[in-house]
């Protein structure tokens, strides 16, 4: 188990290195940040001073090494536009994003999993068909269409809720709804198919044949086994807590990480974009790592299979 954790750690670190290299290459090779930020009419000595200050005159490998050294000290650079540390800027936006993505995640778990399990236990019922239809809609209706439709109905036509901004709970309702509807459907579909697969297994028949009550078969034998695929999806959803709301935040002008991405990219604020890429990728990598550990806890078979490797 320890060896497995170590090898996963090494792999995660390697992935992080690849992300850093990608960020560096894309952002530095694509153009001259001095010209973009100062404008084409800027005086030459201002451009030179700018380049000197940001180390843009060094050869690219030297910039890369300097960049890596910087990262080791958790220094992600300073936002060229706002003159504040890029990492601080990114971190300061995270609470606002979590304020809408966390409730959405809780809705996905709290409504999606029970709905899926219920549908699996009552196949071909109206509830089952409802879950399937909702999950297909959740998968095919893009969040920007859903968000705009909700604005059209609840803000424009009915006038119940505000269409944007961040003053109170009522401003968060539409973004949370937009984020969670599709996810609830996807979660329900996943839980449903996981449960159906488990219910077809011989050990369920054995448990039934032993004369166990249906309730204890479902709770003690079926659910724990259906948990593994559900945790995989959950890990992905946790990983995208920070970055998964870019479009929704743009629709509702919610001042979170997603808005910051769009504005930083539009302004070509290199330090901020790099910090964003690394923070987002790290959250994804940590979530994947945790899911991997959770597998071992949930399913002893996976543990021993790995030990045999």
């Amino acid at each position: 188990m320890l060896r497995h954790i170590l090898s996963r750690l090494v792999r995660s670190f390697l992935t992080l290195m690849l992300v850093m290299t990608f960020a560096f290459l894309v952002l530095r090779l694509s153009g001259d940040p001095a010209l973009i930020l100062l404008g084409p009419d800027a005086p030459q000595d201002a451009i030179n001073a700018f380049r000197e200050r940001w180390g843009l005159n060094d050869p690219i490998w030297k910039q890369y090494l300097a960049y890596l050294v910087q990262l080791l000290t958790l220094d992600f650079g300073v936002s060229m536009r706002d003159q504040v540390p890029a990492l601080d800027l990114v971190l300061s936006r995270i609470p606002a994003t979590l304020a809408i993505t966390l409730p959405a995640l809780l809705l996905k778990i709290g409504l999606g999993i029970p709905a899926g399990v219920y549908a699996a236990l009552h196949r071909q019922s109206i509830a089952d068909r409802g879950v399937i239809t909702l999950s297909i809609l959740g998968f095919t209706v893009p969040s920007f269409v859903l968000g705009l439709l909700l604005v059209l109905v609840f803000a424009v036509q009915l006038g119940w809720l505000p269409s944007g901004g961040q003053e109170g709970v009522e401003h968060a309702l539409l973004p949370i709804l937009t984020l969670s509807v599709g996810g609830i459907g996807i979660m329900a579909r996943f839980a449903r198919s996981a449960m159906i697969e488990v219910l077809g297994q011989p050990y369920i028949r054995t448990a039934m044949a032993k004369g166990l009550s249906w309730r204890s078969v479902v709770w003690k034998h079926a659910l724990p086994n259906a948990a593994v695929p559900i945790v995989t999806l959950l890990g992905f959803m946790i990983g995208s807590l920070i970055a998964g709301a870019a479009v929704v935040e743009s629709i509702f002008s919610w001042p979170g990480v997603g808005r910051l991405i769009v504005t930083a990219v539009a302004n070509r604020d290199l330090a901020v974009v790099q910090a964003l890429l690394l923070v987002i990728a790290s959250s994804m990598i940590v979530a994947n790592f945790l899911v991997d550990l959770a597998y071992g806890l949930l399913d002893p078979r996976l543990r021993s299979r790995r030990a045999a490797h």
Partner: protein
Amino acid sequence: MTSVEATLESSAKRSLLSRLRLNLPFLIWVSLLWLIAMLLVAVFADQMRPYAITKMDLSARMAAPGTPGHLLGTDDLGRDVLSRLMQSIRVSLVIAFGATLLSAVVGTGLGFLAAQFRGWVEGAVMALADFQAALPFLIMSLAVLAFFGNSMVLLVCLMGFYGWERYARIARGLAISASAQGYAGAVLQLGATPARVYLRHILPNVASTLIVSMTLTFPEIILMESGLSFLGLGVQPPQSSLGNMVGFGREYLTQAPWIMLAPSFVIVMTTLSISLLGDWLRDRLDPTLR
């Protein structure tokens, strides 16, 4: 091609067709009809659209749907929504088709390479797949598009990376298990080159699984492209795509909701049809899931 090979192939085709023809459910019919209609619109957009996409009629700005001459109304500059919609369908479908093919080819190729050479090649491919999975695609595309500027070719290439890691994982797994099955080893013993073994013998055996994956990524690519265009970073004006129409229509949500509703409807119907068709195909074709 020898006659024996030809007969074998045609009988394989016949069994594929007969498997498909078993009573099409009603929903699948509707999905198929919708997709055929979309394809026709994409191909004949130039002949079908009533106006040029940039033709403005400032005296008929934001005309409601049903106005004579403008079946779906006009937008804020008096341009015909139906004409723009047809062009958008063409642009979005071309991008999605190109990108789906690209990512299938790239992903399958890399997966086969990993299966053939194992060792460090496999390690490198899998590390790249990890990297792709760790970085949300929308974030990666935003960075690349904004920094390298915008062009149709770049957009298709970028979208062509969408989901490649899934094909790579599937192709690698299938190829490894196929080489353990003996038929691949047998052809290799007969003197076939590895390229021939992979393309002529393993690929046909794993094709149905890969085709099903393509029907799953296709709608996702449409959604990804329209999301990017919605944020203003995908297809650029005067060219128009479905997402970019929704993005601009958003400004006139209160006065002229039809500008945004028409392309939204097309996006939802198209992704829905392909998803239904893909699900159905998977049940029919994919032997690994039966």
